[in-house]
């Protein structure tokens, strides 16, 4: 049984790989507490079972009514746990201070923006991505904010977690120590698709990281390609279906709608009638998504991209969507 449980990304029974500078300390303390707990648990249960057998009610046996009080032992079992608890607190404190104290110089500052239900990472050179890339062996600093509700930045392999609460900045730093690909979860409940608000963390060698940055910063020449490029990086992909394969997203799908007139939802200033799916509509629904919601997507939440997309970028997106015109429309949601 155990081997099958272990047959996954874990290299220990308890933990995923230790991929950051904090991981070893956290695991060490964890294991320490495990041993302490065993040291308490086993005797307690043993005593319990032993007494249950030894003093069980049976013919010819009568227990005593004494032994109601014993100062020494009572003091002992109050003081010893106190001391141990103090030690655990102290160790935890040290680890925490390590995480909270300013990172060593030369950090890679990455802006993290959490939106329902996707992540967006902005790198020092202005590049953006929806998956996190960090150089190995160099401290990376996350400067995080949420634009809607509470989210949480959680990378098990790094043993790092920070909630991201709107209206304020949150910081977190770590030094990746092991190249590879790890999971990033949203750890604070944030609504319908909370459980799909995941991303990958790529810990790369400096060269690969530099390559990634260089590649990530330049937009393709061809407008349609740029559209697709934006579509993948600006987290449209998270919700909107494009192409024949792929999952049905929470938002309206792109293909097969261009140039047709689409039914609108009632409410806001969409009066429930139809509208032509064209550049203007695309532009409008990217900047003011609430205004003209599509029928059947009344409850879908799309963040506004006001101030985040240049007008020509939006045009590129429109061009990309237009290029999908030919493709078959997906099954109605």
């Amino acid at each position, binding site marked *: 049984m155990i081997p099958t449980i272990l047959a996954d990304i874990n290299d220990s029974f308890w933990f995923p790989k230790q991929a950051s500078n904090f991981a070893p300390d956290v695991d060490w303390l964890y294991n320490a507490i495990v041993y302490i707990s065993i040291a308490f648990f086993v005797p307690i249960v043993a005593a319990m079972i032993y007494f249950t057998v030894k003093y069980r009610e049976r013919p010819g046996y009568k227990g005593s009514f004494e032994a109601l009080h014993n100062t020494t032992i009572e003091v002992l079992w109050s003081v010893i746990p106190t001391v141990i608890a103090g030690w655990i607190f102290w160790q935890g404190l040290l680890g925490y201070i390590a995480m909270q104290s300013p990172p060593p110089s030369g950090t890679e500052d990455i802006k993290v923006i959490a939106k329902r239900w996707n992540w967006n990472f902005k790198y020092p050179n202005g590049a953006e991505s929806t998956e996190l890339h960090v150089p190995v062996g160099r401290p990376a600093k996350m400067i995080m904010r949420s634009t809607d509700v509470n989210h949480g930045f959680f990378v098990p392999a790094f043993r790092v977690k920070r909630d991201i609460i709107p209206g304020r900045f949150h910081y977190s730093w770590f030094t990746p120590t092991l190249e590879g690909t790890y999971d990033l979860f949203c750890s604070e409940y944030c609504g319908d698709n909370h459980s799909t608000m995941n991303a990958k963390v790529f810990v790369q060698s400096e060269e690969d990281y530099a390559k990634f940055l260089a590649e990530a910063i330049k937009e393709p020449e061809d407008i349609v390609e740029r559209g697709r490029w934006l579509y993948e990086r600006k987290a449209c992909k998270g919700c909107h279906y494009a192409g024949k394969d792929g999952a049905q997203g929470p938002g309206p799908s792109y293909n097969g709608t261009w140039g047709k007139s689409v039914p609108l939802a009632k409410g806001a200033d969409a009066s429930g009638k139809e509208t032509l799916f064209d550049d203007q509509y695309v*532009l409008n629904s990217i*900047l*003011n998504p609430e*205004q003209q919601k599509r029928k059947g997507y009344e409850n879908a939440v799309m963040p506004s991209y*006001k*101030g*985040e*997309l*240049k*007008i020509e970028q939006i045009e590129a997106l429109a061009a990309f969507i237009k290029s999908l015109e030919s493709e078959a429309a997906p099954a109605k949601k």
Partner: protein
Amino acid sequence: MTTAVAPPASEHEHDAAHEHPSWLAHHFDDAEQQFDAGKMGMWLFLVTEVLFFSGMFCAYALYRNRNPEVFEFCSTFLNEKLGAINTGVLLFSSLTMAWAVRASQLKQTKTLIGMLGATLGCAAMFLGVKAVEYSHKWGLGLFAGKYYVSQVEGAPHSTVPYLWYLSIPALILLVGFVLYYVYAFVAASKFHLRVAGPLVVAALCFFGGVKLGQVLEADEGHAEVHVADGMKSHGLEHAEQDGHDQASEATAPAINLLGDSDVQSHDVAVSPAESNTPDSSVNQKGMAGLFFSIYYCMTGVHAFHILGGMAVITWLIVKSARFEFHSKYYGPVDNVGLYWHLVDFIWIYLFPLLYLIT
């Protein structure tokens, strides 16, 4: 709460610890035990009240120390005079209530009813003044949170007759009580007269309060807006700047396309240049609006406690009109008194915290 302490009532009094007089619940040994239990219960209830309000005081402290300038700006919209008068009224009602307790202990039923009536009246008057305050603010568009309307010089007063709406319930009650009084008079029932009298007076007091409020509100004009010159909220300043940086560097076209949220349009309307308008950074939903949320929550919840108090005092008037209270059984009066003083107690803190910010 008090109902739990008050056993079924009747007029005659015995005080033998073991054969149970009807005012002594069967599970108590004697009158004193019953009294102690009731009183301790009431004190515990007051504890819950204190903690209940502490939540709002916490919110107050939080936001006041986060941006004091907002509180300074906003409290200029609150009319000190009205606050002070209301404080006086409540204090007086506390006096009459305490007096009522004394009367009940001494079985001076006339005084008792009189004092309870006075307390009721003061409560009604307090609410009358509050009605004026609220309606005046609503007229200015000083609503809570996201409904707050940014104050602009010479903005038109809303024409909605809020004060009228607020007075309707009182009016209905007044009519009802008068009818009741007439009935009592016709039926020549001493008991009903004893009850109806105070009620009519109390209902009238509400309108007295309204009148008083209007008089004081009138000479207070609303030039408040001037006060808040050149205050600048820290965080906002820098958020604004970010806005501009971004605009200049990246998103110039996008910015032009921005849909106009009323905050936007308002920013255009009130540029910080205009000397006698409040600074836009304070005078908006997320700032002044928040203050008024706190103001309405605190005073509103307090007002509801007043209403509750009035209800139980009315109940006391009925009981005392039946001559139920005496030195062995006055728990209900005492406990309602405790509650009433707590309501006063809360207001004693609300007044300086909300009205007297300089």
